[in-house]
């Protein structure tokens, strides 16, 4: 009896390990497939990589204050915060619009009739697509930060743990984007309409939160709390605080640059809020 139990346990462990290997293999397959497909699509190059960087350049040229008005250090920090904000705009472009577009094409092409016939774990499908989206989004994000750096933006890690906060909030924000994409696909199921809706979500969320929380003064005073709650502005403001020296330049810094009020979301509670967003949105994956 003991022997059988041991053997059963061994077989169970082997099966579990086999499932783990299979899951990893399937996740990698979906990740590579979607990464390649996204990088070979002109829309990704233009809207995911080119547009956020171009927008940063326009913002820097026409909307940021002069160094003479706010000081060189504050301007460099403001440019850094602007780059972070538009970098996350690029992240949302990739994880929401490009991701939804790819998933929508699979549904429109009836490709899921084939995929569902395979012994594939849905979680491997989602994880692979998510990883591909994260990889492309990371390029988009880094590209805007690099353009900002060339333009004179200054980046400073506030504390050692800032690396974790920036990476973690990036991953969580990407998860929010991909999850919203899945929800939209689940509701609409039409690739062409999905692209329109996700683009609308992208732009409305950016402007409604005062350029991803960078200029909360655009919102009525009573509603400015929104920038520390909406996932896009929350992530942007969290990262701006951890990647730049902006608060040190007060009073000519944050207020002139427009980041406060409300205060920047620097407490762990805001990281938890972003994680809660990711979990809440992801739990509505919609069965695909």
């Amino acid at each position, binding site marked *: 009896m003991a022997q059988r139990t041991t053997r059963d346990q061994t077989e169970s462990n082997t099966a579990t390990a086999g499932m783990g290997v*299979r899951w990893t*293999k*399937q996740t*990698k*397959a979906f990740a*590579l*497939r979607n990464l*390649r*497909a996204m990088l*070979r*699509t002109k829309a990704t190059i233009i809207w995911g990589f080119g547009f956020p960087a171009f927008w940063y350049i326009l913002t820097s040229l026409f909307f940021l204050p002069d160094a003479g008005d706010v000081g060189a250090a504050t301007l460099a920090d403001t440019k850094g915060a602007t780059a972070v904000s538009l970098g996350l705009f690029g992240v949302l472009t990739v994880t929401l619009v490009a991701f939804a577009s790819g998933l929508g094409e699979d549904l429109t*092409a*009836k*490709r*899921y*009739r*084939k*995929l*569902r*016939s*395979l*012994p*594939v774990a849905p979680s491997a499908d989602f994880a692979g697509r998510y990883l591909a989206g994260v990889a492309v989004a990371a390029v988009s994000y880094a590209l805007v930060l690099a353009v900002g750096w060339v333009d004179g933006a200054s980046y400073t890690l506030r504390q050692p743990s800032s690396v974790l906060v920036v990476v973690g909030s990036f991953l969580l924000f990407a998860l929010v984007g991909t999850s919203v994409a899945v929800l939209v696909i689940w509701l609409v199921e039409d690739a062409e309409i999905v692209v329109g809706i996700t683009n609308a979500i992208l732009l409305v969320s950016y402007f409604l939160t005062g350029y991803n929380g960078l200029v909360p003064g655009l919102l009525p005073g009573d509603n400015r709390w929104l920038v520390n709650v909406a996932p896009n502005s929350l992530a942007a403001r969290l990262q701006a605080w951890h990647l730049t020296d902006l608060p040190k330049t007060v009073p000519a810094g944050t207020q002139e640059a427009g980041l406060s009020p409300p205060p920047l979301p620097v407490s762990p509670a805001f990281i938890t809020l972003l994680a809660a967003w990711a979990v809440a949105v992801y739990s509505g994956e919609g069965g695909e």
Partner: protein
Amino acid sequence: MTVAEAGPAVSVRGLRKNFGDSDVLEVVEFDADEGEITLLMGPNGVGKTILLSCLAGGLQASEGDISVLGDHPEATKERLSFMLQDTMLVDELTGRENVAFFRDLHPRSTDGVESVLDRLDFEMDALRREVRDYSGGMKRKLELAISLNVDAPLFLLDEPTAALDMTTVETLHSLLAARRDAGETIILSSHLPGDADLADRIVVLTEDGVSAVGSPEDLLAEVPPVVLVEGPGDVSESVRDGRLFEGEIHRRGFLRADRDPEAVTDNTDGTAIQVRDPSYTDMFNYYVHLRGNQ
């Protein structure tokens, strides 16, 4: 164990599928025996692809029971391979990348893709190119090779011969026949009568469901003699349902049981009329358009 004793690999009873208010598959019932090739034959749009998708677990039936290898389709995914025409390949990926994707998804994939592609006369260099540059025939060959590159007892193939040239169709028939001889079960759909040669059993699917099931020989034996008409003459009273099917040269109908072939061909108005044994094309017309409407 003989093939006959093996029992059905796939059994379908009272299957119905609808999307919203629209029925795309009427009540369907048939068995597909283990180690045999079953051909789902029917015109475009009668739901052959939907039926195969239900058998593969890619779609759920609205009503009815499906048994695949003795189990529910959801539980047999590892033991089958499904080729779904025109949907599998991602245009932005190369042929080789598409192959790798599906190889990594199915745990029983083998390394035989290139051997199948070679048999199907696929240009191997094209594997390096993006699939968006492929012709319809090349895509079909790649979909086939990917789907046959699985060590499974059951293959479900959706229109595998569509878009293939006649030489490749013959090669594919030979390849599938060899797999049948090795004990594998194959269910394929087609609207091409030429595929009847390959089948052990034919299931004729119409808009109203299954109109006939049997071996190609048995089904062909039940088809009445065919009246071939070349010219303006009216023979509608001599053919079943008064119906003539248009062909490139002839109009064709099925001789009524109460008509004498010699009397029908005895014509003086310059119309050439012959009465011949039916072909598989006639069999298709008969079971789809005449029997299917009864």
